[in-house]
């Protein structure tokens, strides 16, 4: 009774606060909560397009799917579906390599552009451009570059070499999708780091210089610690985004050749929306992906918090 009473009292006192928040809470419940719960429920059934039930014009088809318990999860996690572990491995490689290059290249460019150089504004503008290009436009543009008759092959042929079918072989296709995503993601990291760099007090550098620290030492001892809060946030964001980066892979290769560039989300999409629509299985994939990201985020935040305490 206690909490209820105090809740009631808080409502009496702050009713306007509750009233203000209500629309947002309701919208969130409808837009996020309902689909999430529905997805959880679907993942324990055998729902697909033929048994989900629908009313179309004169046709009334009653739902006929039934509960299968955790069968879908078992199917995925035991490797029975034949795709999960290979796709997961590639998803992890994809995420790690992308975030690694995003951060190192982004950081490098930020440090360069933070100095006083001529045409700094121009460089910043040019480097931010990929970010301004919508993902799908970038993907289609790169697809043209990678095409058999595209720019890359024209250059190769100009020098008398054979053209490469970039997107036709698993390895080159994997390198190709990573290259495009690195190109797309670096600007955000660069801008974040630029912002972070500007918050580091100049006095620290001056003091370090007085103490005779070399450029590398100043970078390691002043810049990197100063960037830690930014670094932590962008790494977390970067991992989550990249893990679920749908558009680049879907539009560039469609997961091909033969599914070799499919990451978990594009694979889940294909289960749900390409060919026979296996809603239940796709929902289970969604839950598995969400759980992995939740675990990662929790562990990552904990470890960072520990580092902060130590520092």
């Amino acid at each position, binding site marked *: 009774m206690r909490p209820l009473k105090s809740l009631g009292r808080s409502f009496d006192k702050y009713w306007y606060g509750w009233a203000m928040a209500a629309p947002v809470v309701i919208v969130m419940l409808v837009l996020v909560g309902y689909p999430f719960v529905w997805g959880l429920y679907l993942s324990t059934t*055998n729902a*697909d*397009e*033929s*048994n*989900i039930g*629908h*009313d*179309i*014009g*004169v*046709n*009334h*088809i009653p739902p*006929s799917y039934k509960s299968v318990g955790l*069968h879908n999860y078992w*199917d995925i996690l035991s490797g029975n579906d*034949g795709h999960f572990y290979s796709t997961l491995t590639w998803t992890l490689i994809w995420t790690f390599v992308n975030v690694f290059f995003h951060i190192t290249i982004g950081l490098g460019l930020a440090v360069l552009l933070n100095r006083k150089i001529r045409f700094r504004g121009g460089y910043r503008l040019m480097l931010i451009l990929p970010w301004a290009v919508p993902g799908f436009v970038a993907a289609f543009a790169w*697809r043209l570059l*990678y*095409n*058999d*008759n595209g720019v890359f092959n024209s250059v190769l042929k100009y020098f008398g070499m054979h053209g490469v*079918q970039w*997107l*036709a*072989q*698993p390895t080159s296709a994997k390198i190709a999708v990573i290259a495009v995503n690195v190109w797309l993601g670096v600007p955000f990291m660069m801008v974040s780091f630029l912002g972070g760099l500007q918050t580091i007090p100049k006095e620290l550098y001056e003091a370090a210089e007085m103490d005779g620290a070399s450029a590398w030492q100043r970078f390691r001892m002043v810049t990197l610690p100063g960037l830690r809060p930014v670094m932590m946030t962008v790494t977390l964001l970067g991992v989550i985004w990249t893990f679920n980066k749908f558009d680049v892979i879907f539009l*560039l*290769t*469609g997961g*091909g*050749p*033969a*599914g*070799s560039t499919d990451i978990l989300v594009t694979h889940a999409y294909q289960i749900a*929306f*390409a*060919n*026979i*629509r*296996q809603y239940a299985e796709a929902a289970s994939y969604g839950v598995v992906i969400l759980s992995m990201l939740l675990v990662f985020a929790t562990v990552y935040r904990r470890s960072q918090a520990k580092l902060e305490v130590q520092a």
Partner: protein
Amino acid sequence: MSARRGAGIAAIAVLALAASACSSSKSSGGASAAAKDPASVKGTVTWWDTSDATNEAPSYQPIIKAFEAKYPNIKVNYVNVPFADAKDKFKTAAQSGSGAPDVLRADVGWTPAFAQLGYLQPLDNTPALQDASDYMPGPYASDHYNGKIYGVPQVTDTLTLLYNKDLLTKAGITTPPKTWDELKSDSLQIKAKTGVDGTFLDAASYYLLPFIYGEGGDIIDASAKKITVNNATTLKAVGIAQDLIKSGAAVTDVTKDGYSNMQTAFKDGKVAMVVNGPWSTSDDLKGSAFSNADNLGIATVPAGSVKAGAPVGGHNLVVYAGSKNLDASYLFVAFLNDAQNQATIAAKNNVLPTRTSAYSDPQVANNKILSAFEGPLKSAVGRPPVPGASDLFTPLDTDYQAILGGQKSAQDGLNDAATQFAQILPDFSKS
């Protein structure tokens, strides 16, 4: 997993006209407003056309204008949807109950599948079926499901061997290859003498069918309810395709742009032969290699060790069951598909009409390209009349690509395809 689609697919009857008592749809009744008084029908008909947006779509505009002139109360909302996306897009819209078109141009393979899912309106006793006896029986069969008629055939087609006559002549070849063996040696000869690639093979599994039919096989055996995609016959057929590519006689492209790269290469004279259907010829004729239309050769697909065979394809006009403008949709389907409009479209787009009477129309009879398809169409092989059949190509595409790309052996790839097939057709046995 295997019980997933049990109830639905177990009930599949072969396209025979066995009337079924447990049909889930009720007929809208014969006495629709459209039949009684067409002039009174009002509304907007949204039509998803899946023909090629640049080469074929413009031919429909005058016909739509004529329709709107004849029925001033009906407006047509023309939407061109790329063929490759149309199936998924329609399913998404139909399932969610919003955004689906009133009329769709559906592949012959999709029609029974959509009907089984309850997405299509039966057309029995509606004006949409006017002069139905005039339709060629083969294409019309794809509109029948569970004793009802769910569409009308708009065009029919089959795969053929299209070739660049100049390039063959330059290489000293007088007649197009009649077997895959000849295609191989001719292609190598073309490459040696002219420097261009001999053949461009599309890596989609639909284009694998002529190889399989050529050995006397098929991907499934509908009457015996058996999955045959991984048997020895199919394996041999895939081996022929593999060998063409490995030996350098043929090139392929397993990327998303494979089809358009094939078309570009053929149009520009960078490859001498392709296996493709009549729908592609209006695009071919825009290329520099075929500025003289007579340079485009059309022949039956090469034969394997048993016969020459290519799949019967084509498109139907179907009406969405959730359409708010059913009467207007029936009238639109009837108008678009009357013999004269069929003949006009056929002649302009070089596609084959489905009405017998359209063939006597001078526009069709005098079209050299269309008459060249008559022979190949005669030897074409009908596809298995099973609603799930069109869904088989998606998994087979992936495995065929993996085989052609060297990531899987032919046997492994086909076995994987058979496993996927078993999920789509749970009442079929694996061989």
